[in-house]
């Protein structure tokens, strides 16, 4: 019996519209193994904690990241990307002392402020992968290693330890038209895409990255809308 039934249906947003996106767990797992190559450059100690800030419908983008943490022997923990759950970000940072927090968006910054916490204090000494709407603010915080993370269609672009923004090159082919990044799937996927207009402007960069990960490098200029 052949089944093309999805395991998870998440979504992606491009040009202000949100679309359902289906995936098999095997697709997410293999993307996670690839993503571990970006994370290895950070040399986080196995057993360290990494906090992911996301929402459930971002499963297609963040399940690979979480699987990569497992592959590397790190402990993942989670908070919702919501001002209401920013208190959890502070509590988990205090309790677990995570080496990194991934997915920080403006909602977290707003929520921390609303609850009387200093985001700079919560993030100090950690690697913070910030979304485009929060990157500038996080990057200005002293003592914080600000890195970029972005949901580019159904893929997760992640900045490595050497400052390169990588995207899984075995899984996705990225092309540029009118400065906009277009995404096409290269492998068998339950929901294949071809030249998806991601809504991100940017540029593909030539040459290998000094982090040792051969995945394509890009310059992300942010959402174009």
């Amino acid at each position, binding site marked *: 019996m052949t089944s093309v039934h999805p*395991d998870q249906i998440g979504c992606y947003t491009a040009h202000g519209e949100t679309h359902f996106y289906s995936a098999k767990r095997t697709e997410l797992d293999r993307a996670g193994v690839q993503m571990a190559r970006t994370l290895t450059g950070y040399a986080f100690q196995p057993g360290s904690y990494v906090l992911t800030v996301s929402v*459930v419908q971002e*499963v297609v983008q963040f399940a690979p990241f979480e699987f990569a943490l497992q592959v590397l022997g790190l402990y993942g923990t989670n908070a919702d990307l919501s001002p209401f759950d920013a208190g959890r970000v502070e509590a988990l940072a205090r309790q*677990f002392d995570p080496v990194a927090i991934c997915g920080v968006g403006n909602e977290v910054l707003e929520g921390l402020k609303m609850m009387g916490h200093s985001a700079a204090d919560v993030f100090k000494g950690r690697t913070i992968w910030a979304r485009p709407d929060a990157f500038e603010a996080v990057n200005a915080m002293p003592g914080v290693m600000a890195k970029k993370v972005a949901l580019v269609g159904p893929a997760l672009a992640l900045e490595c330890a050497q400052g390169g923004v990588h995207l899984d090159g075995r899984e996705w082919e990225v092309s540029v038209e009118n400065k906009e990044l277009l995404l096409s799937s290269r492998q068998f996927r339950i929901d294949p895409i071809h030249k998806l207009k991601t809504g991100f402007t940017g540029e593909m960069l030539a040459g290998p990255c000094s982090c040792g990960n051969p995945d394509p490098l890009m310059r992300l200029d942010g959402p174009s809308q």
Partner: protein
Amino acid sequence: MALNEIQYPSILDPIEAASREFLDRHQEASLAAMCEHAVSNAPLIRKMWADAGVRPSDIKSVADFREKVPFLTKDDIRAFRDAHNDPTGGMSVDSPGQTVSVGTTSGTTGDPTPVPNWRRTPAEDTYARDHWHIGVRPGDHICHMLFTFRGGHRRRSLSELGIAEICFSISPFEVPRIVEASKRFRPTSMSIFPNPLINAFEQYFEKSGEDPVDVFRSYKGAIFGGEPLGERQKALTKSWGLELFETTSLGDVAGAAECRQHDGFHAYEDIAYIETVDPITAEPLADGEIGELVVTSLVDRLSPLVRYRTGDLVSIDRSPCGCGRTHARFKLLGRATDQILVQGRSILPREIMGLVEKHSETRANLFQIIRPSREMEELKLRIGYDVSRLKDSEGALKSRLYDQISAAIEVPLVLELIDEQELLKLGPPHKIPRVTKI
């Protein structure tokens, strides 16, 4: 052959219909094994047992367990956490290679408590059984609404069964997408479907003119959770063609949900051992008596909660259920810590819910009991109302609420009305603290 043409069994796991004799023997064996494991691996349990002078070898029967094993509370876990700088509170077993991620509790009453997750958590097992009972089968879709703090994106218990999860936040903003998914994928179930989302659906249907019966026509049920289900929501969702199955937490050990008999929450007895004790004296109570629910995990080696006092007031029934399953059910009356005594009369938030929701302006059921102490001379309620639905004046609404609640509760009453948006700021979208000191 299509997936749904296969004749699947009516229950997911045969243990759900095991005989009482088998369950009792299984529990006795599992309790002994879990006690041994917990004392060997969880520092807090080891300390508590040492303080009580009890050893795992002393536990040879359920009777021994109930007579000798010390109780564990959330405060014990928090105190150990603070004293030992251990985020797991001395309760969690750090097992490299087994701990897949670390989830946390809601944190409604303080710092969230860490809950290490194995590949498949007990709660995932119980929810899979609950969805299966509702009628979800391989090849189906369900709408999956949750918070990521429960375990992130690693959940795969349903996909392992061939059931696709369509993922959403528990947020009113997701309602249009849930409607779209319901019409496109025709899911057979959804969880968790809480009060605020029902209210958001109601507003959406009122404004959009969409036919809820058509939107939900593929659903065989929906798992409702977060807070008790009120009569208004029950009637409303019934008119949409949705049968709701209430679920609750089994003391951070697993989930427990109603079956089609709607006669209590099924506590899966291969996953947890449940008992009741007097909430004040901690004396063991017989099944059927109202007491505080105490839960022991029988399966979770990473978070071996043993005799964990949940703070929930329940009555347990271990007689076979009409649904064909044999595991215990319990009726939930409310939180022991939420209980107040007004001139000697016991009052719990669940009782107030059925009254507040009857008014259009307060249909969202947002209220708090102000409880500076457990025993009070008058009932103080803070009730949130939807300013846009005000029919007359705030004073008139207050008068209506006062008359109705006073007549039902029959104790002196003090009401405070505020904009419900102010109450919503006090908590995540699914629930607010129902009892507050000020």
